């Protein structure tokens, strides 16, 4: 006999989202902390869905670059927000996968009937970035703090060398390889023979698509102005191939270098949040259901010793998720492939089209095949909006859910997000 003590799993609904406009590093949000931005984003979501003083099942969010003071960041933000202070919260961190993984975690608890509603989010600041003292100085300061006598304190202080006083700047580099993420991406771009022009084309299209979406008011109920900013300030509606062609490569070396500041995402500040719920909860509150989160898959690659590209993990996650759902790569109406770098999107798609790669690396009889480019990132992606690491997932989930809702019932959308550490998260949404 079936165990009836627990509800059968159900699909979590995406009710809507909110984000603040994304700002290039050291511009509009130079003075804002992670907590300021996440709190403002939660308050915007609360205002949009009338949740003032309401308790939701949980809030899950994270930041990639965190200060020591960002301890319990999400819970602290909830306490400073207009949500009920009795709303539980926790932090996660999976580099650029943080936002989407947070949505998956909330959706899973809803699916299991453990919660009825939840908020998934992410925030990052590269302006108010944590500076750490170097490891040597840190050890001296800890021993100074532990010293009991004046003599011990002086001994500890005597160990400080001038060179130790230079703080450690956070860098967008892999700890195990010492390479910047862009340098890793450049290696992959070279392996997959991704040209400069196709990267620039993708970047220009991202800007034009997003500008058009803003123009038609698509983001009106997805974005709340913050600190004087009403649109992402990285967005260049007048971006053109001619302008982009003039830029010098910044990642990769020598003649074959193709990656510029325009076809790579800039350092960005921002935050996003998505409201998920059971269908029953949404109906009870009179709130819409834009789409459901159908399934998700995370994968990791060995970019350190295994020779796979740092940002190629979504390529591996995809066939696993598609097989589990009995779907092919072509069974979707919209594709959201996070534009960490234009070359990453292009390498990802090329890998799925490559019979040898799909056979040898993914263990497939046939390649996953190609994607209809007219369905890819139709309202722009990270090259246009910018990429505040942990906030990108929430931006994509909320936008895609709205796109699917607008397209009508039964439409499917696919998300693919690559992350530092050789990880990747993919997900399916359905209206």
């Amino acid at each position, binding site marked *: 006999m079936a165990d009836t003590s627990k509800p059968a799993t159900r699909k979590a609904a995406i009710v809507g989202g909110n984000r603040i406009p994304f700002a290039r590093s050291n511009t509009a949000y130079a*003075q804002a902390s992670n907590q*300021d931005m996440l709190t*403002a984003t939660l308050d915007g979501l609360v205002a949009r869905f009338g949740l003032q003083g309401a308790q939701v099942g949980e809030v899950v969010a994270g930041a990639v670059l965190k200060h020591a003071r960002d301890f319990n960041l999400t819970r602290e933000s909830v306490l400073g927000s207009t949500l009920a202070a009795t709303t539980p919260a926790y932090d996660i961190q999976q580099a650029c996968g943080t936002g989407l993984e947070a949505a998956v975690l909330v959706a899973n608890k809803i699916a299991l009937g453990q919660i009825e509603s939840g908020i998934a989010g992410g925030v990052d600041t590269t302006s108010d970035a944590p500076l750490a003292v170097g490891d040597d100085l840190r050890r001296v300061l800890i021993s100074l703090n532990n010293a009991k006598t004046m003599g011990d304190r002086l001994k500890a202080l005597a160990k400080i060398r001038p060179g130790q006083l230079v703080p450690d700047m956070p860098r967008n580099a892999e700890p195990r390889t010492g390479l910047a993420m862009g340098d890793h991406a450049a290696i992959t771009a070279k392996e997959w023979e991704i040209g400069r022009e196709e990267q620039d084309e993708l970047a220009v299209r991202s800007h034009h698509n997003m500008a058009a979406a803003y123009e038609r008011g698509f983001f009106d109920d997805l974005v709340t102005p*913050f600190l*004087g900013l009403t649109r992402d300030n990285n967005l260049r509606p007048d971006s053109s191939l001619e302008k982009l062609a003039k830029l010098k490569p910044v990642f990769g070396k020598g003649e074959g270098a193709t990656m510029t500041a325009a076809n790579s995402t800039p350092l960005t500040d921002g935050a996003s949040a998505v409201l998920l719920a059971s269908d029953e909860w949404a109906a009870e509150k009179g709130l819409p259901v834009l789409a459901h989160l159908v399934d998700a898959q995370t994968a990791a690659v060995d970019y350190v010793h295994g020779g796979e590209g740092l940002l190629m993990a979504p390529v591996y996650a995809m066939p696993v998720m598609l097989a589990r759902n009995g779907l092919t790569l072509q069974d979707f109406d919209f594709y959201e492939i996070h534009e960490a770098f234009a070359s990453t999107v292009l390498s990802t798609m090329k890998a799925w089209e490559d019979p040898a790669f799909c056979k040898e690396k993914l263990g497939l009889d046939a390649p996953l095949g190609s994607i209809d480019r007219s369905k890819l990132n139709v309202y722009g992606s990270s090259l246009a909006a910018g990429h505040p690491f942990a906030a990108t997932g929430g931006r994509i989930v909320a936008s895609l859910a709205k796109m699917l809702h607008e397209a009508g019932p039964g439409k499917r959308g696919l998300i693919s997000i690559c992350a530092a550490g050789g990880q990747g998260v993919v997900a399916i949404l359905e209206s």
Partner: protein
Amino acid sequence: MATTVLDAAPSLASLYAKAALTSRGRGGELPDTRLARHGVTVDRDHLADYARVCRMPLADVLPATYPHMLAFPLQMALMTDRAFPLATVGLVHVRNRIEVFRGVRADEALDLEVWAERFAAHRSGATVDLCASAAVGGQAVWRSRSTYLSRGAKAPDGAPEADVDVAVGSLERTAATWRVPDDAGRRYAKVSGDVNPIHLSGLTAKALGFKRAIAHGMWVKARVLGALAGRLPEALEVDVAFRKPLFLPSTVALSTAEVTGGWDVAVRSATSGTEHLIGSIRTLKEKH
């Protein structure tokens, strides 16, 4: 009544110097003058500095106490004018009541006006209210009343009794303990421009009769609001009485109690229980 419109905020440092030089020979009635500034815009970097020093979240809606930053220099100009009957040096801020009629956004240009009223008799001197109002496009959005006590001063004959008390209910439970550092006065002075020597250092405070530097009352008030961020109505009235000075450094305890329509609050010494601030925060129902 005469209203003088100023183009820029007066410098507080020079007004304090003027106050020190012109404290003698004051007397008479309150002047009927008003000072005003039109189209005052908020400098977002300043707002960020203010939010940081008062431990408030950085947001687009101004903290209830922020317009005071913009109005205070005008009030100082009014008080240091020779026509003002009380010497500015030695004035003690004993009560501050702020009404926010609606949330004021940082991108709104404010028309500010300040005036003095209610010269009143107090058991140890006289009090006067320095008032301020802020309007956006002709609509009042914010108003404040700062009551100052001048010890030993005498209110004119027939003056009303001073009103310096704020009623609060029982406040037993400590919500937070704050360690207020030695430099709290200097930090707030840097942001607010309120460089009254009693806040800056032990030496300068001693010169004016205080045993140590004391925290700015408006800073304590702002920190209380910061501690209640996300739990406050948009239209509100925050009325606080500043009791005993908060000597620096100190460890103080914030007590809050949710009551019908708002909060009662108190800030007291964590060690002796000496009351520094008591206040009431209420949803503002009537529009003014």
